[in-house]
Structure formats: C-alpha cells, structure tokens
C-alpha cells in the first residue's frame, strides 16, 4: 500500500476538449503542508476539485490513502477530506453554529441524533477558532476572516485528516491572511492550499507545487521551487528572490509591468 495520503497519477481533466489539468503526478505525505501556486487560469482550483471528488470525469488515477477515489463513497471521502472553498454566502442567513454543525454530516446516519459529545466537539472547534462568542451570529454578517475561521471550525468538526483550502486568503488583509494560515497549520493535519501570494506560501508551506497551463512545472521545497527565471516567465513579470528578514524564508519581489517590458524591449 502507498504511504501517500493523497496521490494523483497522470491526472488530466478537460472541459470542452481543452485540458485544464494535464498529466499531473502528485504525491502528498501525511502531515505535510503543500501550496499549489500559479497564475490565474493555471488549473489550481480544477486540480483541487479533482482531488476532493467534485470533478469526476478525469482520466488517470487519484488515490486517497491508497484507495482509488472513484471507488470510494462520497461520505467516506468527506470523512477524510474537509474542504474550505472560496467565500460563499447563502441567501438564507445561517448562524455560525448552523455551519459548524454541518461538519457532523459525514459521520451521521439518517436516524442519528446529535449527542452531547457532538455538541462538545462543536464547542471545542469554536473555541479553537476563537468564535465561541459569535456562535449565534449570522454567517453573512461576519468579516471575511471570521467566515474563513467558521469554515475551518466546520472542518475541525468534520475530523478529516486532510484539509483542502482553495484560496483562503483572498480578500483578507495582511493580519487575517497570516491568522488563517497559522490557524490551519496548528491543526497538525495534511494541508493542501491554493494561494496567489508566493511569499505566504513560502512562509507557511513545506512544499510548493507551481502549476502553469495545467501542468506542474515545479514541485519542491519553497527555496528550490521558487526560481527567478521560471517565475518571470510564468507570471510575465520580472522578479528578484531573497530572504524575508523576519522569517528568513524565501521572498519573491515582482517588478511592475513597465519594468518587465522595458527590460524586454532593451
């Protein structure tokens, strides 16, 4: 049996005969934090959707803890993979408690009622994300950072061993970007995160996968994955790579569009 918790082999996913994800090979180890980065349209979200079973019409293979994903019941996948997707607002104003309690769904049968243990799990999750005082507040009235924390609390209740987060730092200010990623790291489970900010990815992730036009062009620790020439080519912007003086982690600084084309014209 494979030692990887999540594995993709020759994974291709197409829409309207266009390959959005191309021949991707991916191995995720237990407890690892992996960032999937790349420009808009690189196929990051599509790749994630294949990995958690939302896109099923793919070619190639995906294995979850050694078992083929397509052969697993949806409920079993949900018991092992929790997903925090990009911000979603419901037209009905659900409370924080309503959403966090949804984490119990994959573990409950049709006739099961909530037990004291379930309520304690929900409460512990709310304490962990520091939202117990807002449990009766409506989800739609929370800030972007708080909404992400609610979804993380739902994932905690879901008790999955893999957490997939699709651009969790979008629309958040600096403080909340760091808060969300630090919180996810504290869970000590396998994390797979798509993110636009390369520096945040380098700071919080053990490994970076760079996706470009549906293909993996780099898969390594941040120091090695972030290559100046490759990044300049992928993002069409000149850049320099150095160390963040606070964290000593790899840091990328991009030039503006004029600087890049100016240099190119010379």
């Amino acid at each position, binding site marked *: 049996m494979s030692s990887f918790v999540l594995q993709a082999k020759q994974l291709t996913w197409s829409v309207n005969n266009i390959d959005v994800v191309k021949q991707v090979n991916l191995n995720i180890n237990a407890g690892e934090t992996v960032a999937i980065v790349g420009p808009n349209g690189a196929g990051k979200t599509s790749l994630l959707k294949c990995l958690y*079973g939302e896109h099923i019409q793919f070619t190639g293979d995906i294995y979850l803890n050694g078992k083929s994903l397509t052969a697993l019941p949806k409920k079993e996948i949900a018991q092992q993979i929790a997903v925090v997707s990009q911000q979603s607002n419901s037209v009905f*104003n659900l409370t924080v408690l309503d959403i966090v309690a*949804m984490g119990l769904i994959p573990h409950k049968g049709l006739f099961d009622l909530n037990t004291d243990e379930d309520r304690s799990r929900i409460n512990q999750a709310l304490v962990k994300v520091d939202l117990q005082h807002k449990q009766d507040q409506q989800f739609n009235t929370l800030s972007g950072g708080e909404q992400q924390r609610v979804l993380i609390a739902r994932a905690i209740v*879901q008790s999955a061993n893999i957490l997939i987060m699709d651009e969790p730092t979008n629309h958040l200010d600096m403080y909340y970007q760091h808060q969300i990623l630090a919180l996810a790291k504290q869970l000590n489970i396998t994390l797979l995160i798509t993110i636009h900010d390369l520096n945040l990815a380098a700071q919080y992730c053990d490994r970076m996968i760079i996706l470009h036009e549906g293909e993996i062009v780099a898969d390594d620790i941040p120091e090695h994955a972030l290559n100046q020439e490759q990044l300049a080519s992928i993002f069409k912007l000149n850049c320099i790579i150095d160390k963040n003086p606070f964290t000593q982690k790899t840091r990328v600084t991009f030039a503006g569009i004029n600087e890049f084309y100016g240099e190119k014209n010379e």
Partner: protein
Amino acid sequence: MSKAIKLPTKKLPFTWLMLIIISIVFFTLVSSVGYGVAEIGYQAVWQCVTQSCEKPIYDTILWQVRFPRMLLGFVAGFGLALAGALMQNVTRNPLADPYLFGIVAGAGLGATLTTFLPESVQVFSLPLAAFLGSMLAVVIIILILLQSNWRRIEHLLLAGVAVSFLLSSITSFILYTGDAFSSNRVIFWLMGSLARADATALLWILPVVIISTTIAMILGRQLDALLLSDESAKTLGIHVEKLRLITLILCAAITAVIVSYCGGISFIGLMIPHIVRPFVGITSSKLFITTGLIGGCFLVWVDVIARTALDGQEIPIGVITSALGSLFFLALLRKM
C-alpha cells in the same frame, strides 16, 4: 436576491416555541369549528368535544360538516406550507413555491379535460383527473431536467414556469371553446375550496402528508448541507442531485394530492416559511415541523373567513390566500 434574509439573533428556546405553537394548534382546532353560518357558541363546542352535544343538530354540524372540513384545512395547510419550506430550502430560493412546478396548471388541465366527460361522472372524476394532470406536469419537468444540464437550480425553476404557462394556455383554450356551465365549474374549482372535505379526501391527503413529513424530517440533516451551496454539500458527502430529486418528488406528491381535492390554494407555501423562519431559524427539521403546524392553523382560519365573511355565500379560499399572499410577496420583496 443577493441580500440574505435577516433573523433576530436572540431566539426563544425551541421547547418553549413548540409549546406556544401547540397551544395555537389546539386553540385553532377547538375554536374554529364554532364559526360558520349556524352560530354555535364556544361552550356548546366544548361540551360536544368533552361530553355530548346539547342539540342533535350541533352534533351533525360539528362532526359531519365542520370537523372534517377543519381537519382537511389543517392537513392541506400543513402540507402546502411544508412543501414551500422544502422547495425554498432545497433550491436556496426564498421565492420558491411548490406551484412553480406547474402543478396547479397541470391540475387545472386535468380538471378541464373532465368537461368532455358525461356530467354524471364529472363530479367524481374531477379530483382524479386533477391529480393525473398535476403528475403530468411533474413528469414533464423531471424529464426536461434529466435531459439537460439540470445541475443548475435556475433550470429547475425556469422549467417549472415554462411548463406552467404551457399547460395553462391549453386549459384556457379548452375552457374558451368548451361548454360554459362545465367551464364555470372548473374555474370555481381552481379558485380553491375545502367544501369537498370528506373521508375520501382525508384518506388520500393525510397519508401523503404524514409520509412526506417523516421523510423530510429524516433527510433534514442532509438538506441542511444544501443551505450554503451545492459545492459545500458535496464536500460533506451529500449526493446533491439525488437529494434534490427526492425532495422535489415529495413536494410534487404533497401539492398534487392537495390540489386535486382542494383546488388552487396558492401562496401558503411561499408565505408561511417566511413567517416561521425568524423564530426557529433556517435549519430543516425545526423549520419543517413548525411551518407545517402554522400553515395548518393559517388555512383553517382562512377557511373560517371564507365561510363567514359574506352572509350566506362562501368566498373561494384561493381568493383570500392569493390576496394575502400578494401583499406578503410585495412586503417580502421590499425587505430583500
């Protein structure tokens, strides 16, 4: 449609709320039978319920006329309100209503087709024809949805509206070209009434409503998962398309069987869930049971108004629910 419906942050504990609602139900069931053309005081009603009636005529009026009618009103109101709550939650559309399926239009077509039958069998065949017409509408919609990309909720709602207009236009054509007397009967039936209340009506409607309520309560947790988004529900292991199809069939069955006997009673499914949500919240199980109970009481009182507002004449209940519903609809749109 993007703004969420606001709920008060502090809610009454559910147990207390249920006690209040059960008291309202009890009060409704006992007191509503006292109203009607023949005035029977509360004391006489209470005596009939607890001992035996003071006069034999009270016995006939209460137990053979008003009680079955009140019971039918309660069960029909319960079913229509439940179907509305189910539709709104499963489509995440606060303006959804079971009638969007074209069920009333289908029932109307079925009822209209009975005008071609001999007059002696029309009275008996009308509910059956209406039921078959309702099911025709549902089958057409489900076939359309299974053929196309039916993952999108908008397709479901638009398919319902399209089928509704199609069936209504056929009905209008038949009524326009048909016999005036039979047409009048169908038009009056479409306005809704509980006058058909008898054991057969209850025998058909009650089991459907009870079974549908039970299934809806069992599926409550799964239906809750749909409230955020389809994608979110799928990540929780929910078979979204299958769950939505089951729920739609439940709504269709409830509405079709009620419409067959009671005609077109509109807007209850739209109104009642909105009235109840601020007190019990959004999640399914609590919403379904409370919406049903309040919907039942609402229709019983609407029927009381229908029977007593005009001297010696009954107003079709569909007229009253439509009038109230339209005003409510406008108020709801203003709030959104």
